């Protein structure tokens, strides 16, 4: 042992001497190893930190540690967006209570949240449609009023809504005049102009109350159709049990309003969606300009995005004008004239001048807008407390609509600015099931009965022409072919049809949207698409997945469990892609290192043939020569790799104190907040050393093999 250590000492001494002797070679080889070590430690630490942060975002916002769905599903579950368009084709889990009970038998499972993810369009019509809808509702309320108090209240509503519609018509009249000025008059339908003039006349409004429904139909069909500012809103939502969701995802907090009470229908908007898609566009742009100038250090003068927003606010004042009735118009004119010191009478022009903001006047105008103008405007298309109508094509193809009261908005703490975490809204499970359209046995039987009564036969596409129009002409002469066209004259037919006055009945869901409380049993013992599982010990995800699937089998359920990263779909794969890129980069660097070290050592070996031959002549074994060269490269690897890894640790530690700022909404999600604080993983340092030493040792084998073959005779020949 002592002899062996003494040999090692001599070998190390010689290795150091050789490294110093050829400094340039050592620095080049060492430089590459240094960079490799740095990349392994810093790159991996950074990625591990992103994965850890992202897992907090995904687990804390929607996925939980594990997602469970039906193993018979055609598609895989992806809760945060998927590669393909549309909803994934998932088979349903028929009884959530049964699934939950089965999952809770698994030791590591802490809680289970029922879910279903889908999306639907919300169409609201244009501004005039919306105003007329309110007027119609007010007229209906007046028509149905039973007490004097109700009548007086409804009358006041009708008067207010009439004023608003009148104002909109006057804006439309102005638009038409402008259009005539810039377009060829022949392209404007004179009937449209005549209809607007009629709707703007005093006579029309004086007579409105004589035949209000007739007047409304005229406005809806002839006036509203001339406005083209209808917005389509696509909402993605999770159907869930609000109480279980809030308890399991503790980063969720209600921003405005309240959560949906247990057993009630209800909808919570993600704050991000509420601000981005439902807020008055001019107000939203003002918020964004404020955010840019005050929090991100941008200026209107230099930032093209902020400039664009100012331009859009100036040119798009119409959406505000359409919200004003006569009284508000007078109020806005006075306020804006005072603020701008202008005598301009046109509110549209005053608004355009008001929105012409620069870095000097922006803050003042922003405050003025929210203090003086906003209270008279509807800042959001849907307000907290409104009933939202959501319509979707169900899984079975039927169109289904539901009314859900909007209870409030929510966001996840630390992910306020993330588009990804703020993309999904929440809906109660009962409404979700209705919109998703699970076909009940009763409905299926009704459909089959209708089909049977109709007695229709199926004709396949391939045989359609042959079956429907007789055999082909070349097979059977036209004259002999059976003619299917019947010519039955049935003068004065008296069909047995439903009486026109008969009501179709049917329970109106709109009336029970707010009031009905569904029993917990009905909510829980129903269909879900997936369930989020929160674990007691998150480190045991793999074992728990196996246990969940096994328990499902024992309970007669076909459950498929996936971890949060798989459930996150595209986003979950993003980290894997980045990791792959990093590994490829590390592989390339070390391959280059391997080749360069190998070449350098081969050159060095050839230069040292005399020395090696002499060593061999004085009794050095081949093993000694091999050890000498391997130790030489390991020393280079150890020193430079260690320096690289050390710098990596230092870098990550420093950055870990300061944090890397999230520059965009997406990075907010990946960093699970406004900054990423990277941390060092011991495994990364160990890995860096292991890789460096392995590569160094491996790259010295070939030159060592050459050196081992050097004989004393060769060395002497070299001398000659």
């Amino acid at each position, binding site marked *: 042992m002592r002899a062996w250590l003494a040999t090692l000492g001599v070998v190390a001494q010689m290795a150091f001497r050789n490294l110093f002797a050829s400094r340039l070679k050592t620095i080049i080889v060492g430089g590459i190893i240094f960079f490799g070590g740095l990349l392994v430690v810093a790159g991996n630490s950074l990625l591990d930190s992103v994965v850890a942060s992202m897992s907090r975002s995904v687990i804390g916002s929607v996925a939980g540690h594990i997602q469970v769905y039906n193993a018979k599903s055609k598609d895989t579950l992806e809760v945060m967006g998927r590669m393909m368009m549309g909803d994934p084709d998932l088979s349903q889990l028929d009884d959530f209570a049964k699934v939950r009970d089965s999952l809770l038998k698994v030791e590591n499972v802490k809680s289970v949240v029922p879910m279903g993810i889908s999306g639907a369009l919300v169409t609201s019509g244009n501004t005039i449609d919306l105003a007329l809808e309110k007027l119609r509702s007010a007229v209906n309320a007046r028509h149905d009023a039973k007490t004097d108090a109700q009548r007086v209240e409804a009358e006041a509503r009708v008067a207010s809504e009439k004023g608003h519609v009148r104002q909109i018509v006057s804006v439309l009249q102005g638009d038409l005049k402008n259009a005539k000025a810039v377009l060829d008059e022949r392209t404007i339908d004179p009937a449209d102009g005549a209809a607007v003039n009629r709707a703007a006349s005093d006579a029309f409004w004086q007579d409105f109350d004589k035949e209000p429904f007739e007047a409304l*139909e005229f406005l809806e069909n002839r006036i509203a159709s001339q406005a083209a500012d209808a917005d389509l809103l696509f909402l993605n939502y999770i159907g869930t049990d609000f109480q279980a969701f809030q308890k399991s995802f503790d980063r969720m907090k209600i921003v405005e309003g309240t959560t949906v009470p247990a057993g009630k229908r209800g909808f919570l908007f993600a704050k991000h969606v509420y601000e981005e898609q439902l807020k008055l566009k001019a107000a939203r742009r003002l918020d964004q300009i404020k955010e840019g100038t005050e929090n991100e250090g941008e200026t209107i003068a230099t930032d093209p995005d902020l400039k664009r927003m100012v331009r859009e606010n100036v040119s798009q004042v119409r959406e505000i004008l359409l919200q004003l009735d006569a009284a508000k118009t007078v109020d806005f004119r006075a306020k804006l004239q005072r603020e701008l010191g202008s005598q301009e009478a046109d509110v549209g022009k005053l608004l355009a001048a008001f929105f012409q903001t620069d870095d000097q006047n922006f803050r003042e105008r922003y405050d003025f807008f929210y203090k003086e103008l906003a209270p008279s405007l509807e800042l959001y298309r849907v307000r907290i407390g409104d009933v939202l109508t959501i319509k979707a094509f169900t899984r079975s*193809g*039927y*169109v289904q609509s539901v009314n859900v009261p909007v209870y409030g908005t929510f966001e996840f703490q630390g992910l306020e600015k993330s588009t990804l975490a703020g993309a999904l809204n929440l809906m109660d499970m009962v409404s979700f099931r209705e919109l998703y359209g699970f076909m009940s046995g009763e409905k299926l039987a*009704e459909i089959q009965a209708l089909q049977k009564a109709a007695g229709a036969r199926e004709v396949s596409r391939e045989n*359609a022409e042959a079956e429907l129009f007789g*055999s082909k002409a070349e097979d059977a002469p036209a004259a002999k072919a059976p003619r299917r066209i019947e010519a039955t004259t049935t003068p004065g037919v008296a069909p*047995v049809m439903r009486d026109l006055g008969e009501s179709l009945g049917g329970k109106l869901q709109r009336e029970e949207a707010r009031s009905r409380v569904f029993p917990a049993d009905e909510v829980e013992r129903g269909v879900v698409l997936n369930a989020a599982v929160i674990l007691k010990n998150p480190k045991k995800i793999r074992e728990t997945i196996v246990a969940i699937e096994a328990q499902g089998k024992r309970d007669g359920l076909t459950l498929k469990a996936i971890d949060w990263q798989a459930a996150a779909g595209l986003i979950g794969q993003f980290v894997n892609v980045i990791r792959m890129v990093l590994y490829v980069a590390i592989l390339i660097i070390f391959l280059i290192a391997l080749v360069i070290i190998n070449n350098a050592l081969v050159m060095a070996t050839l230069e040292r043939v005399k020395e090696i031959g002499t060593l061999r002549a004085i009794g050095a074994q081949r093993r000694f020569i091999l050890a000498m060269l391997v130790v030489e490269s390991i020393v280079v690897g150890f020193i430079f790799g260690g320096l690289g890894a050390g710098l990596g640790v230092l870098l990550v530690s420093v950055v870990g104190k300061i944090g890397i700022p999230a520059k965009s909404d997406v990075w907010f999600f990946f960093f699970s907040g406004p900054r990423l604080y990277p941390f060092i993983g011991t495994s990364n340092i160990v890995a860096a050393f292991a890789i460096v030493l392995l590569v160094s040792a491996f790259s010295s084998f070939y030159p060592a093999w050459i050196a081992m073959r050097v004989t004393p005779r060769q060395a002497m020949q070299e001398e000659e």
Partner: protein
Amino acid sequence: MNKQTQRRTQRWTWAVLVATMTLNLIPGMGPARRAVAALTSAQMVELLKLVDERQKNNGDWRAAAYLEQKEKDKVDTVYETEYFRRSSDQKFMILFTKPKSSAGQGYLRIDKNLWFYDPSVGKWERRTERERIGGTNSRRSDFDESRLADEYDPSDEGDEKLGAYTAQKLMLKGKPGQDLAFPVIRIWIDKENKNVLKRQEFALSGRLLRTSYYPKWKKIYSPSKKGDTWYPEEIRFYDEVEKANQTLVMIKSVDPNSLPQNLFTKAWLESKSR
């Protein structure tokens, strides 16, 4: 002319004859026959007017329609509906009566507006002519009076055999300013009785969207027209984008008598669900 020259001339004559006959057998390759059969623009418009005229009622119309949509891996979508129309102002309404979950829903067309009403939420929504009725592949215009001559400009594509029938094939392009479900249509009209047998409906890009067959036509005496009105008793739509999807429409219990004045109003459709 000697015998050899005569034989050579005979052989050439036969060759030309055979070649001409062969070309005539290939569709679209018979210039002489096309020249004779081609319709003038006026004739085509007349033909379309005739097609429209046969289906016109010049009054009110009420009928029941059964709609069935088949889609791959889905439960069939089935509706029973009643639809109403008024020729004088082109008003139109479809009221869904079954299944229970859809009862009371309806479409109402007044002027250029197509409204959809859902009683379960009490809301009216504005739709376009491209709306798929109840999610099936049928459009509002499939239930309305034929207005081909007013809406489209025709071009001749010759005759074509369609099973046992000989059909006049026309390509129709939508006139400017018309809100149409399909801007381009190829249509097969039975040469014998001028009923539509088949339609291919295209997007403006030229992509085929739907193929429709009209295998059964019936006629009914209309008091307002004081004559017969023809209507398709069965229409089959085959989706050309989602190839597995098909829709069947069966029209029955037609009543061409006058309807109440207030029928085509939002208030009436709403009242059906009160």
